[in-house]
């Protein structure tokens, strides 16, 4: 589909002014057919849906945070309702006197400008700066764990499929199914309890945080080593809990690919085994996993929330937990939004990667451009 529409749209232009409407529609259709545009549109829609959900969750529900906050301020400081409402609108980025749809519209326009309001707890601190302080650590730990598990899991899965029903296959597959079914926060707890408390192999309390306060940030070996030291536990937890999924998915994808005709043909042509494995089997088997990779990015960032709490790793999860404890709603809202944006970006990246990897989409793009 992606291959034909750009050509059609050009043909529409050639016919001339008589069919400009049709040409424009074809052009639009052509643009729409490009995967990147669709991915972008879907991403924007996702961000819109999530921000709408959080807005109404916080504003509309009975006993909603804004009303709670107003009542709390009145009770604590004894100011009038109007003054308290003024304060609340400043904090929550809402004009409380306006009708709800107006408030919602204002919220969205501010969102487009990247204005998420101020933190309730540390007044005057924009939510965006809070997010920027915590986001990198989550992305670093989750990204490293996810990527490591993907690379290792894909290789192990491919090998397991190749040597199926061998001892290696049985061992790798059963270990994979066991570790992937254990919740990651329980793995984190087991690490703390066994390696930290019982056997005292790991200095658990020293490993808390993202870096040791004394060491100056920068591209120095000391700082990088320190960051890795602090990140080691969460990364290991993500690695262990994710790898099983990649092993099993890659194994079944490879097994399916092994039976394809083109693999048989490649064998018949006498191609080298290594070339068949990489270019014919590996590349095709990994395709469905790339989209899964993006989808799982969302799950993992979400699941990181529990792990960070247990390991006291200062990412978005720990901050979200603190924000909930302190009823800091703008920060909560901001964290949900920034996670959504990260997931959406990961998905768009996956779409791009997919069109690069898929020989069919790749060739079509090459012909059009």
């Amino acid at each position, binding site marked *: 589909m992606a291959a034909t529409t750009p050509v059609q749209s050009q043909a529409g232009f050639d016919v001339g002014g008589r069919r400009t409407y049709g040409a424009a529609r074809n052009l639009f259709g052509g643009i729409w057919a490009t995967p990147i545009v669709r991915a972008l549109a879907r991403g924007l829609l*996702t961000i819109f849906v999530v921000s709408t959900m959080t807005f109404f969750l916080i504003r509309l529900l009975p006993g909603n945070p804004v009303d709670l906050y107003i009542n709390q301020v009145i009770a604590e400081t004894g100011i009038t309702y109007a003054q308290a409402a003024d304060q609340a609108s400043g904090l929550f980025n809402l004009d409380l006197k306006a009708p709800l749809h107006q408030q919602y519209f204002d919220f969205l326009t501010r969102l487009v400008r990247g204005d998420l309001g101020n933190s309730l707890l540390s007044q005057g601190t924009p939510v965006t700066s809070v997010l920027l302080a915590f986001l990198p650590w989550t992305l670093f730990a989750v990204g490293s764990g996810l990527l490591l598990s993907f690379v290792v899991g894909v290789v192990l899965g491919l090998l397991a499929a190749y040597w199926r029903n061998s001892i290696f296959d049985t061992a790798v597959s059963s270990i994979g199914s066991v570790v992937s079914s254990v*919740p990651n926060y329980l793995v984190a*707890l087991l690490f703390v*309890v066994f390696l930290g408390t019982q056997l005292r192999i790991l200095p658990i309390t020293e490993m808390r945080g993202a870096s040791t306060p004394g060491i100056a940030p920068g591209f120095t070996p000391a700082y990088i080593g320190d960051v890795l030291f602090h990140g080691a536990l969460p990364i290991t937890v993500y690695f262990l809990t994710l790898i099983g999924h990649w092993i099993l998915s890659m194994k079944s994808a490879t097994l*399916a690919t092994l039976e394809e005709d083109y693999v048989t043909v490649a064998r018949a042509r006498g191609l080298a085994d290594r070339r068949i494995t990489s270019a014919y089997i590996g590349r095709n088997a990994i395709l469905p996993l790339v989209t899964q990779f993006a*989808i799982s990015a969302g799950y993992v960032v979400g699941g990181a929330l529990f792990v960070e709490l247990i390991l006291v790793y200062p990412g978005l999860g720990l901050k979200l937990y603190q924000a*909930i404890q302190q009823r800091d709603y703008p920060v909560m809202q901001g964290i949900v939004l920034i996670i959504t944006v990260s997931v959406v970006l990961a998905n768009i990246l996956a779409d791009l990667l997919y069109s690069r990897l898929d020989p069919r989409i790749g060739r079509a793009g090459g012909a059009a451009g």
Partner: protein
Amino acid sequence: MTAAAATLPADRSGGPLAKTLDFLRLLSGRPIGLIGLAGVIFFLLLAFVVPAFVPYQDKVDVTAIYQPPSLAHPLGTDSSGRDVWNQIINGGRDILLVGFLAAFFSTVIAVTFGSLAATVGGRLDTLILGITDIWLTIPHLPILIVAAAVLNLSNLFYIAFIIAVLGWASLLRQIRAQVLSLRERDYVEAARSLDLGLFHIIFREILPSMRSYIVIHFIFAMTSSIYAVAGLMLLGLVPLSGINWGLMLNLANVKGAIYFKDSIWYILSPILAIMLFQLSLVWLASALEDIFNPRLRSGG
């Protein structure tokens, strides 16, 4: 993948007893599946039947904190000297119920709209698939956590419902794909040419042959729901009354028991309970997958 579902032996045999025996015979070829089934049954009994004989007791005994296992306390005691075994028995019900209900709701949503999209096709299919694609990108857990914090959920039913509403999307895609492949079967074509109606085609022709497929995905949905609800409890966001495994973890974390050497029995008990139940579910589901979708794993 699809043909196997139709050869379900239970389709032909008679009473429920014969069906059960047939099923067990199939499962006996897969030890992992048997272990899984035994585990699931064990935990169901533990959580729903045993509490009737062992009522929850909240008796605090500060002289017996973090005791190792003994005859009086098979799993030791917690930070206030309460019996851990008693908490494990009485603390499974809520988690298992939420897991079951959430999986049930999300399966209902996914099966209804997934089969509708695939059977009707056209614009409805595009619409449902579009919504599903967006829903799939939404990060469920952060929204679930915020919703639980804001709504102050104290009803099992609501928690299960919210987990299901956030998490049906991937299941819907799988159901839709499965129905799409069944749609072209001869018996569905026959039903369509007899003009038996959409309702009949979906519920009488297509869904029955997907029974095992739906059950397998129901079990997987249950594991992810349990992951979510136990996580919420770990964060202390689900103020359910009494005791549950997640709350035990929450208390262990908040009270610093995980850094206390003697508390090992108290911490390990809920961890193992959740882990073993999840493992049993996964093992049972993958054995079922082996039996009913043989192509998927063994690679035939």
